[in-house]
């Protein structure tokens, strides 16, 4: 028992330390277990054994397997994407990286009718990184959102074949936005017009900004499973929205523009005056671009999933889920700063629907073969496709295996390919919703790899 406790603690600690980074529909992540991942994410009516039911259907932890289940998952996400400028046809690739998303679960059967569980997973998060010379750098060249849901869960069999699970979600989150500041958009000191109208070219970097904030919030999770017959089961789960209030700091680092004012300049300064020297005082501690407090809030949307599972044969089960995600809550990303002007990014996301289908085949009674497909629409409207998160409609295919290593240890692996529709997007902030500023095409694909070890006693 002590060994189990140590394993449990190690699993959850890993989930804390290795914070998630990923990107998917909106900025949601659904790959929290390679078993479910290999089924195309379907399984609300038949969660995988091992403990991931804490996320995929809290009612399912009653059927998690043996009395004590412990599962640790690793998902590796390799996004591939680029932006092609429609005028110049210049292509800029996303920074090549692999993002690691861990999750962990533990369940314990109190009795045949009751179970408790605990999970740490990251249903929302993203990392989008472009080269710092990217033309969209004035919106963001690196955006990182990490959220961890810590969910204690309780499930109870209300009636034979009918069980209910509930959980409380404590959410810890952090966000970083790296962006450049364009001098041409800054108002000339003492004047009512920006530097652009003095001829400072659009796209003149003069500051590197970092917004670094953390926050937390509370939510809930409920699930229901109904075993309608020996072959057919239904499931439904609802995870509430969670509003996370973030606070932290904004810091600005000066970047030399190299611009020297010509004689006769409209500022009335001597020819040869370095513009950078004029700007430097703005970066002093108590000045506009000195280090300062920053805050924002982001609502992690609610999710409603309904689905069914049907055993075509005793060794072959098919599953299908429908998922609703309330992305309409994400209307804007507003950063409030103590001294510098607030940053507001119009988003106006729409609710999304995802359809997932998969199967699980157990040809030998041991090895499990899984595959699935899923598709969903994009959350962002045409006027909000930006380098911060250039998401859109996707179709994805999955395959995977479940491999029993011993009577108490199982290995699951999965692979997922992601194909996103190519979408037009913009590179600059838009003061009002418009597609008129869309200036190129985003292309995005992804390869995801998942592996887990599950212990059952």
């Amino acid at each position, binding site marked *: 028992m002590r060994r189990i406790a140590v394993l449990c603690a190690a699993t959850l600690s890993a989930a804390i330390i290795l914070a998630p980074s990923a990107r998917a529909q909106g900025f949601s992540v659904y790959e929290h277990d390679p078993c479910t991942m290999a089924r195309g994410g379907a399984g609300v009516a038949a969660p995988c054994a091992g403990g991931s039911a804490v996320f995929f259907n809290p009612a399912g932890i009653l059927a998690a397997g043996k009395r004590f289940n412990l599962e640790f998952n690793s998902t590796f996400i390799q996004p591939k994407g680029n932006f*092609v400028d*429609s*005028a*110049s*046809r210049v292509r800029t690739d996303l920074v090549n990286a692999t993002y690691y998303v861990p999750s962990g679960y533990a369940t314990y059967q109190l009795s045949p009718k009751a179970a408790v569980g605990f999970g740490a997973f990251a249903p929302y998060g993203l990392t989008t990184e472009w080269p710092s010379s990217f033309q969209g750098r004035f919106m963001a060249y690196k955006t990182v959102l990490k959220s961890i849901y810590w969910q204690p869960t309780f499930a109870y069999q209300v009636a034979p074949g009918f069980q209910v699970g509930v959980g409380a979600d404590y959410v810890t989150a952090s966000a970083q936005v790296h962006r450049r500041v364009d001098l*041409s958009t800054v108002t000339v000191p003492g004047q009512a017009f*920006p*530097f*652009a*109208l*003095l*001829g*400072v*070219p*659009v*796209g*003149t970097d003069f500051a590197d900004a970092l917004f670094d904030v953390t926050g937390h919030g509370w939510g809930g999770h409920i699930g229901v499973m109904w075993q309608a017959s020996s072959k057919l089961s239904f499931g439904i789960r609802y995870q509430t929205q969670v509003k996370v209030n973030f606070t932290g700091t904004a810091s600005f680092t000066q970047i030399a523009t190299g*611009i*020297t*004012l*010509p*004689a*006769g*300049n*409209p500022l009335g300064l001597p*020819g*040869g005056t370095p513009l950078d020297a004029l700007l430097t005082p703005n970066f002093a501690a108590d000045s506009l671009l000195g280090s300062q407090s920053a805050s924002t809030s982001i609502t992690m949307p609610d999710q409603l999933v309904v689905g069914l599972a049907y055993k*075509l*044969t005793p*060794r*072959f089960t*098919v599953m299908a889920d429908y998922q609703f995600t309330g992305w309409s809550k994400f209307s804007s990303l507003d950063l409030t700063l103590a001294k510098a002007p607030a940053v507001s990014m119009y988003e106006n996301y729409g609710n999304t629907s995802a359809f997932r*289908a*998969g*199967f699980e*085949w157990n*040809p030998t009674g041991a090895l499990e*073969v899984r*595959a*699935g*497909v*899923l*598709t969903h629409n994009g959350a962002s409207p045409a006027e909000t496709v930006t380098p911060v998160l250039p998401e*859109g*409609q*996707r*179709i*994805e*295919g*999955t*395959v995977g295996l479940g491999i029993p290593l011993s009577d108490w240890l199982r290995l699951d692996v999965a692979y997922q*390919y992601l*194909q*996103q*529709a*190519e*979408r*037009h997007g913009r590179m600059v902030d838009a003061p009002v919703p418009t597609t008129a500023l869309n200036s*190129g*095409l985003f292309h995005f694909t992804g390869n995801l790899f998942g592996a887990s070890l599950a212990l059952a006693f």
Partner: protein
Amino acid sequence: MLSRKLAIAALTLPLLAACKDLVSNETLGPAAVPSGGAMFATYVALGTSISAGVQSGGINDSTQKQAFPYRLATAMGLTPGVNWFYPSFPFPGCTPPFSNILTKTYVGGTASTCTLLNPAYARPYQNNLGIPSLKVGQALNILSLLVPATDTLKAASFVTGGRNPVAVMAAAQPTFVTVELGANDALHAATSGDTTQLTSLAVFQRQYDSLAAAVAATGANVALANVPNVSNIPYITRGYIFFCAHSGACGSAAAAPFSSTLFTVDLSCLPSSSGGVGDKMAVALPATATIAQVLAGGGAASLNCGAGTATVTTAAGTAPVGPIVTVAAMATITQRVIDINTKIASVATTHGWALANLDSVLSVLVAAGQIPPIPNLATPSNLFGTYVSLDGFHPSGAGSKLIADAFVAAINKKYGSALTPP
């Protein structure tokens, strides 16, 4: 058996899912190629006020749209404001053009002020880098633009934000460049009569080589322009014209107010064919206007072409007027223009670039009598004819069209394009 078939069928689903066509892709469509050809995809104009679109001593969006780079871009199939950008100065301008240079009144009735750039044209780079007063060396180093602070100088700082024009040109990654530079290395000497305003030939040659190297480094196709003979600009009037207007001895009747008996024109103002030097020197517009004004007011005036002097006499006394371009200065300036054009032609040949002959454009107009030999002072709205604007040296809209035509002819000849004169 059933489960095996189902499994095989289901395993094909991921393969289908990987099919790119299953999502609704948006597309960029074929790359936009200007109707003139791919070589014109990104056209940048380096140049002087002629490229910028200065007319009648000022510049605004209206005059900018008449400048040859705008016309040339249109001929290339580019769309200003879409894939070709210029630093647009809204009405009335920066500075506003003169409506009457003699009375110093401006279009829009405003004083000499600068409007700011049109925000819609604030861009990462501009395609028209024409900058008023720019000399070749200043295209390489804008800070050497040492003309005292004036409004046209402010325009220079607006166009590139203080960055060197060649650097901004390179940042635009041009596929085609026109270079219309060199006139200001001689023009100020012609308008002031001061040959110290000339860029020395050695310096010009070195700077033009550096400029050419910077342009060549972009890999763009290039069209250079030579420099009009600045002694042909109507801002300056040959001395013999005054003699003719005064005496009526040149086959035309004497013309008021120069026919006044109070106007003394020295015999040195006869043309050289008659033993004078009146065709080898010139009087600049301010002096011409002052002489005319004084004579019309009943005062007296004198002009000595050999000495290079002019005076006016009023109730306040006798005072010299100018500028006068002396015989020696005119010879120096004319030779310098010839040398500058020789250098430009040499660079064009060396690099295999097109050469637009702007010198010929002005010479043809002079020979055809399209440039008034003396300003039409009685009609200030048409001082210098159809092809020269009210400042006496910048082309009018019609003049700019001729310049654009010259570029089109040179480009088509060198690069085999089929641009239609705009």
